[in-house]
């Protein structure tokens, strides 16, 4: 079955890619399978200069999920371009760079540099784990539009804006970045959460709060994508708790054009490959003959009566 999906700047052989921050720059996972099996690779966040991130512990377990507060640790954009991108470039797989920053200037600088080496930018205005920048841009529509517009004009490739779910009105955010020139959306980043250890009486994560990811957040992300699909005209990379080919179908039906898999890579380093392998028979099981027929399927008013009984 043909699994290909075409998005601005991205010609994907299948709609599955690893999510930013959960796959490093690919090297560690290349020992498990050939990265060319992937639809694309989304790299770990890049900032203007090297960052060391937050104090440890940086992760905590939750029911069907986890919290993380890595704090954007990364070697900085220049070193990413020289030391990390070439490894991915050697492979036939589209590369998406996740761009983060504390100021509009930093976003613009990083985008200007890295967009010469990748196929698309994922603009991370939604990282809840750094003190300045990051999440403010992602929870204020005016700021979001501003940074999007600047980054779009600095970029040599299409820009997908990664939305934060920590907002009252996700549609407002999506519309703001759409009018600012985004080519697509990436939905969603983590929900801000906390766990407290009754033994120490303190938050488990040294940073206090962390971002909640994993199966626990899937219904929230599905809801937001379902809402945004009706309100904007941009393609959506959906993510949040994907663990199976059925989950991929659920995201596509809600309105995602492709999906990213994050924390599930930690449970099972083969997860992306396994899901890609299962997709054809899963599509067939539900009566689909290509990916395009699934996208937005939950919005089609016609009742597929013959499918209603299992």
């Amino acid at each position, binding site marked *: 079955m043909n699994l290909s999906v075409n998005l601005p700047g991205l010609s994907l052989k299948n709609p599955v890619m690893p999510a930013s921050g959960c796959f490093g720059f690919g090297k560690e996972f290349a020992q498990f399978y050939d990265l060319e099996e992937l639809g694309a690779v989304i790299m770990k966040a890049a900032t203007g200069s090297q960052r*060391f991130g937050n104090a*440890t512990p940086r992760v905590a377990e939750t029911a069907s999920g986890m919290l993380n507060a890595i704090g954007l640790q990364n070697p900085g954009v220049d070193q990413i371009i020289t030391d990390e991108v070439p490894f991915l470039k050697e492979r036939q797989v589209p590369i998406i760079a996740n761009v983060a920053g504390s100021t509009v200037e930093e976003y613009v600088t990083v985008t200007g540099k890295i967009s010469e080496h990748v196929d698309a930018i994922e603009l991370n205005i939604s990282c809840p784990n750094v003190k300045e920048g990051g999440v403010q841009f992602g929870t204020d529509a005016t700021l979001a539009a501003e940074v999007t517009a600047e980054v779009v004009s600095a970029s040599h490739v299409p820009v997908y804006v990664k939305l934060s779910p920590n907002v009252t009105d996700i549609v407002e955010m999506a519309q703001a970045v759409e009018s600012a020139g985004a080519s697509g959306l990436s939905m969603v980043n983590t929900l801000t959460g906390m766990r407290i250890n009754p033994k120490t009486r303190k938050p488990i994560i040294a940073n206090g709060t962390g971002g909640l990811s994993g199966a626990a957040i899937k219904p929230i992300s599905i809801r937001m994508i379902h809402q945004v699909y009706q309100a904007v005209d941009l393609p959506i990379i959906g993510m949040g708790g994907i663990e199976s080919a059925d989950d991929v179908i659920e995201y596509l039906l809600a309105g995602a054009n492709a999906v990213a898999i994050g924390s599930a890579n930690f449970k099972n*380093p083969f997860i992306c490959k396994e899901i890609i392998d299962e997709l054809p028979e899963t599509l067939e099981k539900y009566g689909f003959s290509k990916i395009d027929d699934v996208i937005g399927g939950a919005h089609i008013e016609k009742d597929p009566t013959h499918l209603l009984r299992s």
Partner: protein
Amino acid sequence: MNRESMTILHHERIAKDTYQLVLKGKLVDQIEDPGQFVHLLIDGFYLRRPVSIADYDKSSGTVTLLYKVLGEGTKALTRKSVGEQLDVLGPGGQGFPLKSIQTQRALIIGGGIGIPPLYSLAKHLHNQGVTIISVLGFQSMDDAFLVDEFEKFGEVYITTDDGSLGRKGLVTDPLSELEGTFDTYFTCGPTPMLKAVSERLSDIPGYISMEERMGCGIGACFACVVESPDKKGYRRICCDGPVFRSEEVVLS
């Protein structure tokens, strides 16, 4: 490193809240050094649990783990029976680099559930003819394990928090009287203990094995970093460690 469904050959309580688990599978073949770990997926839990390899036998394809019940995950693990399968990722990380370690007289310092990786190390060093002195610390007599096994390798000093076994106190207490009897030390235990030991023995070559909460366990997520005093600024415990030369990391 691989992911494998391993078979439980043996599962037994060996001390208070402490269990021995013997698994069989092909990934045992890939173990390089003592001090590496496996990452266990326990049904119903989102993150894997890192557990050190306490012993292994490539000819029979078995690996022995010793774990302590500290939370819900390890508690659930105790319910797994012989014959059942366990989802294991491993072997992970860099262990004690046997090929490059130059020691004639080794001091082994283990605290509680930090002792298991040192057992495999001591066994290897002993087989290589190295003289071994061990200092093992436990909360109390009920928590003690592997003491007889370490005694086969050489002299053993035991400390307990309550004095119920060996002498009352910390593993650092016997260090002054052991001065000069060893050329290298090897330690694993809670970070405050590692800090105390490495400060005390700062002029002697040492290897320490560290713990931190992990996400991926393979070097991709940067959950498990520890500060390093060099330009790079950090090490990942899951792949650059868990074993480090004492001067390679900054303990806090």
